């Protein structure tokens, strides 16, 4: 006896091609989400990406874009599956199968397919990350930071996505079963979904909206600060919304009108154009997803050149091969010891400079949180933060630059481009933290020296003011700067050996990051409060991890050894760089899979059109042109829009940072342009291969 279940099983076997496509799409989406969240939330990445930092924000933003892409992609795959399934469901309904009769089999099928593919996809995400990460370690760069560990709480993200996939599949099944028009269900597979047309204005307006959204989205946090004295809440990201509306309109224009004028030859590519138009909803959705993914990928990969160029140019342009500072109470190798070590490596040194400095408390304007935790007001705080202070003479000796600082004033150190975020320009007094003697002062302008423009503000005082205010300071508030050049070619082994010797010379009192502020600590403790840096794990620094990203980035006495920084740049930034490279790969793989799948479904769904065209005498060249035109639009437009939009956005960000484009930024954008060309080449290669595969399926010579 043949039961309903037997019959459904048999039908499922016959439909395995469609099921495979759905399984594949679900699997891919879940694998991508699982892999991305596994890496993003792994301790390996978490400890390197500063919480709330720009890099972390970028990583989360691209994750959201990828998530949106995967959601739309799985919905699309589900739609394709049900469009095919509807014919079968409709026939069974027409032959008297009631909703109750069909529901168990249908729900079983969608739950098994979506659930199994989602679970396997989620599980596959981990080996996927592991393989790619270890390939990076093997082929590109390896460091102690790059040891990969997972925090399995990331499964929560995958679980949510899994529930979304299964829930949406069940909802769609229920929607089909609820349909009362059986003929509609039967014919669904062959019903076109023309998209609602807008005029030819929608493309240009779309571009305008993209531009507006980018400016508004980027400008909103600034406006929060400047106009409302408010830390931008998460919802200000809503100002980016016009970008998405604009993207939709651009894709709509592409599908409905195309970007070429057809006035001269209105019949050129008419078949592919009409095919796109009448499957408009699916096509627009696909183009939108691919655009988002390409944009996300580019956003991630552009991070590498913009960071690397700026860092490497900075290293190359520093005036000393070796530049370092230390606290006076530390037993740091003296000049003689360093020269002896240099001789072991066949090196001799020149341009030795040494000068003393002090650490004082400096006043300044601070942003004080209101009770709502969102708004703030600006208030002057007398002992705001630590500052490294040099006398005019010491500054001249160290930098070779003249500094004419009038008594009762101070000059702040910034970099050549005046982009330093930490330069202080609002102090009214400077405080000796031991004697509590205060010196009234006034900001008298900037001095420019990159090596002194660090996280801890640096100032120069008049010689006499300096002597007066530093009187009575203990060694923990005194320090020394030292710098020298190598006479001839430098040696990385020496730099490495000196770095290790230098780090090992410090005691535990100096094991703190540059953002641990001793002046702030004293201020807080004196008012009976606990300083945040004494309770937070973020302020822990270990000399044993002197090669780690966190140490080299944040240790308060991290030296500037040119050859060491240049050679170890990749290694110390490895996790960050590889995370962005991984994001780029994930986004591009997903985008290419979506494009490939879309082209495949075009071939499957429109096979009869190509057969009819053949019967009407269309030449292979004509059919080839139509296939290329159809696939070309799927690949070309999202790639162009995605890469161009990100290129422009990055240029805008670099420009808006300081209201100008620096030479290093021009160079970085040049490298980004080259990267874009490589991405274009890869996309073109996949497009060619897709066209070839589709032509094979459609039997076009």
């Amino acid at each position, binding site marked *: *006896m*043949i*039961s*309903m279940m037997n*019959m459904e099983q*048999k*039908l*499922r*076997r*016959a*439909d395995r091609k469609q099921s495979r496509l759905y399984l594949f799409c679900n699997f891919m989406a879940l694998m991508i989400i699982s892999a991305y969240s596994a890496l993003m939330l792994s301790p390996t990445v978490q400890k390197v990406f500063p919480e709330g930092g720009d890099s972390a924000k970028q990583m989360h933003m691209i994750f959201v874009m990828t998530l949106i892409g995967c959601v739309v992609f799985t919905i699309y795959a589900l739609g394709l599956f049900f469009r095919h399934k509807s014919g*079968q469901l409709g*026939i*069974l*309904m*027409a*032959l*008297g*199968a*009631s*909703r*109750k*009769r069909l529901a168990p089999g249908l729900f079983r099928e969608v739950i098994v397919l979506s659930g199994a593919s989602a679970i396997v996809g989620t599980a596959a995400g981990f080996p996927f990350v592991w393989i790619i990460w270890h390939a990076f370690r093997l082929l590109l760069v390896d460091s102690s930071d790059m040891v990969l560990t997972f925090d399995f709480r990331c499964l929560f993200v995958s679980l949510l996505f899994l529930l979304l996939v299964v829930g949406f599949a069940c909802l769609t099944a229920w929607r089909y079963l609820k349909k*009362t*028009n*059986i*003929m*509609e269900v*039967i014919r669904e597979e062959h019903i076109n979904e023309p998209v609602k047309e807008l005029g030819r204005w929608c493309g240009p307006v779309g571009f305008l909206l993209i531009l507006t959204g980018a400016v508004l989205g980027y400008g909103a946090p600034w406006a929060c600060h400047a106009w409302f004295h408010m830390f931008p809440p998460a919802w200000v990201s809503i100002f980016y919304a016009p970008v998405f509306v604009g993207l939709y309109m651009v894709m709509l224009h592409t599908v409905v009108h195309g970007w070429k004028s057809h006035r001269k030859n209105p019949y050129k590519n008419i078949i592919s154009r009409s095919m796109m138009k009448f499957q408009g909803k699916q096509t627009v959705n696909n183009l939108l997803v691919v655009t988002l993914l390409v944009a996300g990928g580019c956003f991630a990969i552009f991070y590498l050149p913009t960071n690397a160029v700026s860092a490497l140019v900075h290293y190359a342009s520093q005036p000393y091969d070796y530049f370092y500072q230390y606290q006076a109470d530390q037993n740091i190798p003296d000049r003689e010891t360093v020269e002896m070590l240099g001789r072991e490596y066949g090196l001799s040194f020149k341009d030795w400079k040494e000068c003393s400095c002090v650490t004082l408390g400096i006043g300044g304007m601070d942003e004080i949180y209101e009770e709502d935790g969102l708004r703030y007001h600006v208030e002057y705080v007398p002992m705001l933060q630590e500052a490294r202070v040099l006398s005019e003479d010491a500054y001249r000796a160290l930098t070779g630059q003249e500094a004419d600082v009038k008594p009762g004033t101070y000059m702040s150190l910034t970099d050549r481009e005046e982009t330093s975020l930490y330069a202080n320009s609002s102090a009214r007094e400077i405080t000796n933290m031991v004697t509590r003697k205060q010196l009234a002062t006034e900001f008298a302008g900037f001095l420019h020296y990159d090596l002194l423009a660090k996280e801890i503000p640096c100032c120069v005082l008049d010689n006499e003011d300096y002597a007066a205010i530093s009187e009575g300071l203990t060694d923990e508030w005194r320090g020394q700067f030292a710098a020298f050049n190598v006479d001839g070619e430098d040696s990385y082994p020496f730099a490495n050996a000196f770095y290790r010797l230098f780090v090992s010379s410090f005691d535990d009192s100096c094991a703190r990051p540059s953002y641990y502020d001793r002046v702030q600590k004293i201020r807080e403790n004196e008012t009976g409060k606990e300083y945040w840096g004494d309770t937070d794990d973020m302020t822990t620094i270990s000399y044993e991890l002197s090669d780690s990203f966190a140490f080299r980035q944040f240790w308060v006495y991290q030296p500037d050894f040119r050859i060491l920084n240049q050679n170890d740049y990749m290694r110390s930034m490895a996790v960050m760089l590889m995370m962005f490279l991984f994001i780029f790969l994930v986004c591009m793989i997903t985008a290419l899979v979506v494009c490939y799948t879309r082209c495949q479904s075009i071939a499957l769904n429109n096979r009869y059109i190509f057969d009819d065209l053949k019967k009407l005498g269309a030449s292979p060249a004509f059919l080839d042109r139509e296939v290329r035109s159809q696939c070309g639009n799927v690949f070309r437009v999202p790639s162009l829009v995605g890469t161009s939009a990100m290129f422009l956005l990055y240029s805008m960000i670099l420009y808006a940072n300081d209201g100008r484009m620096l030479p290093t930024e021009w160079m970085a954008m040049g490298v980004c342009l080259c990267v874009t060309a490589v991405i274009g080449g890869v996309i073109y290669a996949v497009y060619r291969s897709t066209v070839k595969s589709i032509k094979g399926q459609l039997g076009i010579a």
Partner: protein
Amino acid sequence: MIKSFRIKNQDAPDKVQNFLPAAGKEETVMLYVKELYKTYAAGKTKYQVLNGIDFHVAQGEFVAVMGPSGSGKTTLLNCISCYIPFDKGNIRLGGMELAGMNEDELARVRNTKIGFVFQDFMLLDGLTVRENVLVPRIVQGEAGKEAEKLADQLAAMFGIGHILDKYPAEISGGEKQRAAVARSLINNPLIILADEPTGNLDSKSGRAVIESFIHAKEKMNATIFMVTHDSFAASFCDRVILLKDGMIYRQLEKAKERGEFQEQLLDAIKKMGQEDII
């Protein structure tokens, strides 16, 4: 006046005084359609497709519906088969009122009281011909040995016994449609509804399908209601209803000779077309 309802199915019809056939006709009424209206909406525009249709079909009668494209033939068929909802009117099948039935009751009617033959066969590709014929029984949960035997008998009756184990992709269009006819009869329905059953077939296959309908009518006393464009196929029917603009334009009774009936049909269709030109 109606003397009795001779329905093969166990569901005996109830009172149908409101939808009586023409006076003096003594026959068993299987299908009544009264004041049937159906509109389609395309955007804000509404199209009246069925505009108050009244007719009946007697048991064992083979009736065709003809008319130009857009006259409402297929919509009428889809309303009778409960595939699409209608706006207003009554449809009685074997004495049962279809309007107001819930989804489960409608499904039962489609499964046990109606056999449907589609223009494009609508066989399930993943099942063999025998399994396809058995689908209504499988849906019912009664596809046992007895049903298989019946499927084999029907297949033999329609000349497709030799292809029972083949899949739809392996057989011709005519064979597919005869399999669909066999499927429509497997549950011994009150009526077979056929939508352009010869529309996708060559003349030889089309003829074979029509013969299978005639065979079902003669051997099984099947009632058949067929929509067609083909005057040749319609000329085998007992009666032909001509539809125009959603209304019944004319009904023609079978003549003595099939050829003569086809001539009458062609004349009537020609006249209907000329009225439009005038």
